[in-house]
């Protein structure tokens, strides 16, 4: 098995630990007994693998290490947010006292400096946490760079700024295997395409959110990106694409299923709402089916969450005013129980299929 990213390495390490524990149980129960030579060979092979994973991917070798990793990830994220905010407020605090030339030089050089520092840290930092923190600060500096140039020179706000932001975020994300910047880049891409679709219809670009259908084409395209471009090397990038795409598709659908007047469709708002309610239920059900078939947990979980939101929204529309509150919440609870039965049934069918195929 060719390990290409941290997630795969971590999974293999976990499998090795599980295997060791199960082997001990089998020996204790007298089911299996390996001689010392075989045991030694397996142990040496596993130690070599774990050592290689540790050097290449800085994996967590035990539960304590994993808990500390989660803490480091949270600290890295919060630190990046705080540092980005600090850069932002630092510039605002003093920029009024700088000449225009100095303002421009500072904005560009800080972006360049944080970018170079990010790449330098990436070489030195095996864990990747510090490089990721620096990358987020660098992206924030680039955003600040263009926003402030717009303010300094009274430039007309433009959606075209979203493109370089997206490019920079994706560049750093793919270099550092950084999901947060991947999400930032994808959001910029979604916003840019939505504004373009809107402006082709004569709309002012900042009003792009008023026509939720603008988001649908780019959401569909993004969903299939991981199928066209292999993302195996990158840690959970494919699920990030699919989850963002599903949200970018179904949240506008949810909006239009309750606010038909925002649609391009030349139909009455009630008809539009009916169409998008149907699309919401059918689409999320299709997403769950697709996820189960392709064994994509991210698609199944996002689909289920969105399906429940659609269902609860519709129930609220139908029954909130008509029913006493205890009855309304009782129905919600019973619906949840019904969904549990449905999913248990799906799971048992899946288990039978897996057994039959010998998985």
């Amino acid at each position, binding site marked *: 098995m060719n390990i290409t990213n941290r997630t795969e390495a971590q999974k293999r390490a976990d499998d090795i630990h599980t295997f060791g524990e199960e082997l001990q149980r089998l020996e204790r129960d007298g089911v299996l007994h390996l001689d010392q030579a075989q045991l030694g060979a397996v142990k040496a092979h596993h130690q070599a693998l774990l050592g290689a994973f540790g050097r290449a991917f800085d994996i967590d070798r035990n539960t304590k290490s994993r808990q500390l990793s989660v803490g480091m990830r949270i600290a890295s994220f919060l630190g990046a947010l705080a540092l980005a905010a600090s850069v932002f407020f630092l510039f605002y605090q003093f920029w*009024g006292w700088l000449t225009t030339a100095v303002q421009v030089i500072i904005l560009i050089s800080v972006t*360049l400096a944080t970018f170079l520092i990010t790449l330098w840290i990436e070489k030195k930092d095996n864990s990747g946490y510090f490089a990721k923190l620096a990358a987020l600060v660098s992206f924030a500096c680039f955003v600040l760079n263009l926003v402030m140039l717009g303010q300094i*020179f*009274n430039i007309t706000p433009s959606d075209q700024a979203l493109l370089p932001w997206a490019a*920079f975020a994706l560049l750093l994300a793919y270099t550092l295997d950084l999901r947060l910047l991947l999400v930032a880049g994808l959001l910029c891409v979604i916003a840019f395409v939505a504004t373009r679709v809107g402006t082709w219809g004569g709309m*002012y670009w900042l009003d792009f959110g008023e026509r939720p259908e603008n988001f649908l084409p780019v959401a569909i395209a993004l969903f299939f990106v991981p199928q066209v471009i292999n993302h195996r090397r990158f840690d959970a990038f494919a699920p990030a694409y699919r989850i963002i795409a599903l949200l970018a598709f179904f949240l506008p659908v949810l909006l239009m299923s309750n606010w038909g007047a925002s649609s391009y469709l030349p139909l009455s708002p009630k008809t539009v709402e009916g169409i998008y309610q149907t699309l919401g239920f059918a689409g999320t059900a299709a997403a769950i089916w697709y996820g189960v078939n392709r064994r994509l947990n991210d698609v199944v979980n996002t689909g289920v969450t969105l399906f429940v939101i659609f269902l609860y929204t519709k129930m609220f529309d139908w029954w909130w005013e008509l029913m006493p509150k205890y009855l309304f919440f009782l129905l919600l609870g019973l619906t949840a129980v019904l969904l549990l039965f449905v999913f248990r049934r799906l799971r048992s069918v899946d288990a039978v299929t897996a057994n039959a195929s010998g998985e």
Partner: protein
Amino acid sequence: MNWSPTRTLIIGLALIIGVNLVVLAGVFYNRSGPAESTLTLSERELTLDRWRDNKEDSSISLQIAWRALPPEPQTGSETPNNSWRYGWYQGEVEWLNAAKMATLGFTREPENRFASGGTSFGRRLPRDVLLVLENDGAAYQTALARAIKYNSGSKEDARLLEEERNKNSRLFVVDAGLDLAVLRAVYADQRRYAIVRGQIRPSWNATSRDRANDPPKLTGMVSKMNIDRLNVSLELRSVFEGMAEDTSEDAFEQIPPSTKVASASKRRRYAVDISFGQRLEPWITSAARK
């Protein structure tokens, strides 16, 4: 796909430097050659921006206070004295009728949902257009004449007239179009008329309560100027420093900046020359205290 550090370094540097060069080239182009128009405005038209007046932001900026002339109130109107103050509520504009809206691309008639039992018209989204700003011209004289005409002698009317004479902005949006050359041919005086980018939002004007059979007519309102805030550079900062704003009107804080009409007690403390360049983006060319 090979995301080696060297490749990332080259692409990243090219992206940062390239994008900044494109932005700065745009600024250079906007400010190159003779300005498309130049206006000399006072504090009545350019208010010190209070919205960013905080300790965390050391910059100074000026807010363009623009207005548009609404139709003259009908006889018997409930509030004849106030209805000319367009900029406060973005209502109907005198010259923005159905014919003008058609020339701006608003060709679709309102969808009459009342006929099928609905309670509203279709969606109304603004479009990006060119707006003609007139400084201290006929539109302001009309507004002043109306203030005089509707002055009943009451204290409130006297105050409104006084504001129109000495405080309110004289910068009016007087026309809109899609072609710069056509607009400039009509409004040739580049020291009085500036052409800027802004937005017109469609609206419907009801003349009858029977909306199913007599639906409202298409009209419009000026909803926004794309650039209505001007940055003051360090070189001109001294002109505006120390000008504490009049805080006597608490309500002033509640008025959106894009529609704010100058309301402080001293409204002629400075004169500012603004140029609008090739891309119709403004910048302050000079400023002096009066």
